[in-house]
């Protein structure tokens, strides 16, 4: 088990990681989800031992690992860039951790070929990394991480630089391949869809802080605060500042009647958030407590099966909220045309002034979009 206890990392005046507490179980898949510069890579480097925490403790199976050099730790790591040893053949690249460990020839041969087979590299073992395609190079790096049979495997956005098809394929296979080794698998990603597709646990990072850790779907459906909800939403979460008066939410652009279960919330300022696929652009929703919102189209992106309608609420100006509505099919709306958005009170999140969640949709099944959003 890998335990992080109040781990912080400062570099100069910059706080890269702040007070992170985390427990990762053997055989588990853990996705670190966060925007770029949120501290994912630093956290992984701390886990690997490439950097030492400024404060706090990292324990592996109960023992503090501070001061143990990387070479002595049982870890494997794969970077976003395709990192291999350019002067060594693919075989030697994969075999390298085993050679250093001083294993005998037969064992090395057996293990390398097994890993190469799993990652479909058998035909390329004699080549140099530079002669491979990007996907094959990254598979070589993954094979090297696999063959070591490390207790802790760190994958830092390993699929980010691959093309779409290959990414989908490897994303399906990776958890299965590494799960067999019983290692703690840590996977950094910027894509919410990846966290959900991979499954396992998700830890969301915001500006060096851990905002939530739990099973992916739970974190997705019931984010503890507005940062987590934002990180775990692609296309971006739609938000607007509202004020609660009695059983109504009021803002400049609309008034929304609240459902009964929100009546206990005190009258105060809140942030209303709604997933892009819960914003309708036709008023026939069949849902209760629908608020109608006037908006203007800024641009429409059409993927074929879906259309992303970018709109601004209310009038002109830089400060008006900008929302995205994700709708089925091709909806080619001209720019600057006005339309009416419909949002049901049954599908909104409310976050209080500190960003804590006060209300979540009862059955947010994430029933649209995410799977195809990359």
């Amino acid at each position, binding site marked *: 088990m890998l335990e992080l206890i109040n781990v912080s990392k400062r570099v100069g005046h910059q706080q890269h990681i702040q007070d992170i507490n985390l427990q990762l179980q053997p055989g588990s898949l853990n996705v670190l989800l966060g925007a770029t510069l949120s501290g994912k890579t630093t956290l992984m480097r701390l886990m690997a031992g490439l950097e030492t925490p400024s404060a706090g403790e990292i324990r592996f199976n109960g023992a503090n690992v501070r001061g143990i050099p990387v070479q002595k730790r049982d870890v494997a790591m794969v970077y976003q860039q395709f*990192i291999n040893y350019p002067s060594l053949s693919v075989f030697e690249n994969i075999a390298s951790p085993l050679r250093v460990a001083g294993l005998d020839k037969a064992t090395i041969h057996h293990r390398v070929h097994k890993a190469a087979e799993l990652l479909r590299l058998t035909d390329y073992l004699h080549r140099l990394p530079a002669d491979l395609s990007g996907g094959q190079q990254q598979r070589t790096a993954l094979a090297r991480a696999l063959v070591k049979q490390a207790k802790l495997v760190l994958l830092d956005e390993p699929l980010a630089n691959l093309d779409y098809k290959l990414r989908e394929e490897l994303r399906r296979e990776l958890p299965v391949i590494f799960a067999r080794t019983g290692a703690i698998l840590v996977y950094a990603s910027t894509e919410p869809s990846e966290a959900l597709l991979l499954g396992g646990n998700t830890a969301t990072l915001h500006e060096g802080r851990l905002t939530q850790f739990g099973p992916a779907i739970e974190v997705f459906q019931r984010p503890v605060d507005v940062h987590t909800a934002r990180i775990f939403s692609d296309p971006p979460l739609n938000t607007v500042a509202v004020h609660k008066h009695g059983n109504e939410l009021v803002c400049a652009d609309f008034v929304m009647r609240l459902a009964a279960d929100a009546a206990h919330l005190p009258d105060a300022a809140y942030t209303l958030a709604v997933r892009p696929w819960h914003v309708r652009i036709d008023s026939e929703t069949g849902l209760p407590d629908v608020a109608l919102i006037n908006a203007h189209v800024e641009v429409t992106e059409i993927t074929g099966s879906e259309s992303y309608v970018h709109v601004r609420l209310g009038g002109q100006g830089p400060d008006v909220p900008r929302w995205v509505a994700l709708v089925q099919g091709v909806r080619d709306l001209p720019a600057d045309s006005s339309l009416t958005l419909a949002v049901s009170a049954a599908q909104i999140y409310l976050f209080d002034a500190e960003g804590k969640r006060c209300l979540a949709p009862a059955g947010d099944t994430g029933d649209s979009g995410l799977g195809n959003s990359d």
Partner: protein
Amino acid sequence: MIRRAWIPVLYIVFLMLPLYWLLMMSFKTNQEILSTFSLWPREFTLQNYITILSDSSWYSGYINSMIYVVMNTVISLSVALPAAYAFSRYRFLGDKHLFFWLLTNRMAPPAVFVLPFFQLYSAFGLIDTHIAVALAHCLFNVPLAVWILEGFMSSVPREIDETAYIDGYSFPRFFTKIFTPLIAPGIGVAAFFCFMFSWVELLIARTLTVTDAKPISAIMTRTVSASGLDWGVLAAAGMLTVIPGALVIYFVRNHIAKGFALGRV
């Protein structure tokens, strides 16, 4: 097309002319050199070369030069490799200033250092030894080698180092087995520049040596004898001095081209 080709042809002719003249002179007798103006030797002779290769006061000059040049190249590289690695991989107090200061050493003409070197090396009894010249040339070659190697090293992603450590490589093993092959062109280029500077440099080499370690370039300046200047032998010595440099360039020419493209040369 044909008209344009004149320019490079002319350029090459002018470039090669002195070298051609030197080569022809080395095959002439002194009498021919002084008496007539000829494009090629009337009386072809190898006597000048025989003189140099059979007289130890001549050929020992080549051996001495070779010894301290190789010593200097080895010392410069073995010092510059770790230094360049540190500059490329670590941030430390004043690293950028130190890096620049190293380079400024090359901005001073070698003559500036002749006097202090002479007295220091005399004090330690190092005058007229190969190591004295080799060490003195390090003042110019180490900064250059550090600068060239740092460029090459910085083009190798840091993640390769880390991946090697994660794989379990110790630093020395990583450096020799993984890192050195990656910067081999850089090492070749740095070695070439060290070699050339040390081979060509005359002032310091001459000042720090007397007889036992006297370099060929210094010996060449002393061919004035009772019978006047020995032109033919001097020309032959000059040709023999060009050969090692030409050989080195031939072997590292691909690396140099790569070096110009990749790192900083």
